[in-house]
């Protein structure tokens, strides 16, 4: 064989390698044959991943015929990654998704409608936290199983309160109390701030403000969901509070990248945060306290951010296997194990109402009990709509704009309402 024919041969082999082999595992076989392996995307890291992997090991040991293979996918990019997988025609069997992504995921081919399945008695659907059930439902169809539920409360640095001679926040605090405390805690010379806010104009900037809007009696959309309603007088008043703190008092650390506030709080530079239980583990150096959100007119409602497990039908009995696995994973026994190891809030009412268990959690991670109880203060959910990502961007921009002093709260919200209405009209 000469050199040239060798090159030709190698080249053809490469070509064959490129074109062949793409059919593996793509086409679903009709009959389940032998053990099924499920692809399972999650975005858990550190203790969360350890806890999840321990549960998976337990399941895989007991179920040789349904093996679950985990794959780490960053939560923030889980929707983009799913999009790419769908383009390739090979979605995962189970994927973790933010509740806010669900309206987008709903359009995906192969997504399993769980409406009938959740009514089977073994799932015990009514036992899931109501706000999470609502967030899992798009146009009357259940498209996800709650994986995680959060809410926002007030986390404060006790030492800074002591130094300033202030009383700790109480359950009947008003937002004006918070504003006054934030002002008293702020010390420009020390580069210390009373409060902090995510200013990246993402959904994070929006949902920290939603509770204020709701407490005032306002709402994001009109009742029929056809128009924006957040620019009501209630909404304007709610935004004026934050804008006043940021612009007039200068008592808010404006976290433009939304990445610095945890370490600054842990370094004693920030007095109070409106945040969720996921941040508590980042504050090892601070003697912190947790209290429910301040209120307007005695209304102390908060907001929940539920995340979901979504299932895709890849044939070959995988769908049934995936549902069997998820039923086990979200059953009370597994939920307890996970919550104790990670500080996640109970997604099941039966677990949340178990006082002895919640006490056990609070010992592992102080303050978690307040967050668990705070789930009672979740009264509303954000709309699950095609147009929501654009509404969220418009609202986020308005909030950031007002808090930077770039525009008046009313003008900012009116502009955002106009953009939201355009998006709603476009989505039809």
């Amino acid at each position, binding site marked *: *064989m*000469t050199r*040239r024919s060798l*090159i030709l041969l190698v080249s053809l082999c490469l070509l064959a390698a490129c074109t062949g082999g793409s059919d593996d595992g793509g086409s679903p076989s009709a009959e389940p044959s032998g053990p099924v392996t499920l692809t399972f995307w999650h975005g858990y890291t550190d203790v969360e991943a350890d806890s999840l992997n321990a549960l998976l090991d337990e399941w895989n040991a007991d179920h040789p015929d349904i093996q679950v293979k985990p794959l780490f996918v960053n939560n923030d990019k889980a929707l983009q990654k799913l999009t790419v997988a769908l383009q390739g025609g090979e979605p995962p069997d189970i994927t973790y998704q933010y509740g806010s992504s669900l309206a987008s995921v709903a*359009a995906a081919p192969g997504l399993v409608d769980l409406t009938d399945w959740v009514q089977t008695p073994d799932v015990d659907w009514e036992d899931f936290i109501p706000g999470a059930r609502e967030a899992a439902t798009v146009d009357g169809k259940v498209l996800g199983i709650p994986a995680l539920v959060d809410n926002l409360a007030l986390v404060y640095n006790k030492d800074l309160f002591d130094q300033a001679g202030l009383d700790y926040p109480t359950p009947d605090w008003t937002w004006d109390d918070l504003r006054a405390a934030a002002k008293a805690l702020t010390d420009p010379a020390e*580069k210390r701030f009373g409060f902090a806010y995510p200013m990246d104009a*993402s959904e994070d900037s929006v949902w920290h403000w939603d509770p204020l809007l709701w407490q005032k009696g306002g709402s994001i959309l009109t009742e029929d969901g056809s128009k924006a309603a957040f620019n009501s007088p209630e909404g304007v008043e709610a935004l004026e509070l934050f804008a006043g703190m940021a612009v007039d008092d200068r008592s808010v650390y404006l976290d*433009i990248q939304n990445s610095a506030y945890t370490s600054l709080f842990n370094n004693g530079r920030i007095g109070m945060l409106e945040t969720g239980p996921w941040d508590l583990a980042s504050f090892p150096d601070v003697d912190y306290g947790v209290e429910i959100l301040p209120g307007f007119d005695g209304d102390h409602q908060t907001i929940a951010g539920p995340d979901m497990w979504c299932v895709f039908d890849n044939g070959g009995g995988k769908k049934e296997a995936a549902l069997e696995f998820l039923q086990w994973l979200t059953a009370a026994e597994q939920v307890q194990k996970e919550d104790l190891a990670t500080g996640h809030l109970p997604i099941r009412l039966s677990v949340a109402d178990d006082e002895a268990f919640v006490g056990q959690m609070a010992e592992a991670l102080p303050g978690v009990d307040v967050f668990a109880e705070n789930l009672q203060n979740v009264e509303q959910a954000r709309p699950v709509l095609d147009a929501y990502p654009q509404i969220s961007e418009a609202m986020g921009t308005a909030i950031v704009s007002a808090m930077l002093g770039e525009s008046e709260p009313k003008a900012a919200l009116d502009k955002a309402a106009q953009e939201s209405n355009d998006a709603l009209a476009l*989505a039809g």
Partner: protein
Amino acid sequence: MPDDGGLNGSSVAAPAPGRLRRLLTSEHLSGWTFVLPAVILIVVFGLIPIAWGLILSFQKAGLISPEREWVGFENYARIAADPKARQAAVNTIVYTLLFVPISILASLLVAHALNRRIALIRFYRLAVFIPVVTSTIATGIMFLWLFDKNFGLANWALGKIGIGPFGFFEDPDQAMVSLVIMTVWGWLGFDTIIYLAALQGVPPELTEAAAIDGASRWSSFWRITWPMLGPATLLLVVWSTISALQLFDEVFFVTHGGPLGRTSVVVFYVYRLAFEQGLGGLSLAGYAAAIAYVLFLVILLLTLAQFWLARRVVHYTS
């Protein structure tokens, strides 16, 4: 062994028809064989997506839903009426107008400083180039802390000489300039290497002759060195313009288009539409593809114009 074809007596035992035989033994075949893997890569990852993007730009389509609807030029017509697209276009132009001249001027100065025989010159050259090979993420994290309004080193140092404090990425009016500073720093080494090579290609006898004739250093630079750097400058202008118009990584990681959309550039806006906001029922991927195609045409025309202009002013040595 004479390399005269090599297929003789192997697979083609019977005498092949003349044409086929000539084809199989020609230089063309081995040439194509060599480039085949690269061609496949370019077709699969370049040409097919480009064609697909063109088709997409005439559809109302999201990336998640398989539904596609032909809308003709509707996506293109929408661009003009979209205030966010206009904002992204203005931001991109402002960025390019700042980035290209500043990075070229700065790299020329640095290259000039490095084009001499002094101690540790290799170290200096290496130091200038390191930012280019540093990942954007690392650069981004560094600048986020450096330019932090309250705790950053930049404001601390500037405060010592009585300037500032600046908001940098946090201030809507300073974010774009901060982005330019960061990216110029990141790409300075690349431009510098090109200029350094070009400077070393300037024959020393020319500048020596000019010096003997009594030319000042400035006029010697302006009349001899600068024209001799023409091809390098053209390369850098074209290349920097293209990459400035396609800016994405730094915006995505450091500012995410903010604050208030002041650093939202075209490619970033396309990404937001296609991969963040238009994934579900809004189906904005087709619209995003249309914007991307308009950007492609602008870059194409601009590059052609730059080459056309350059033919008149750039001096090539034989």
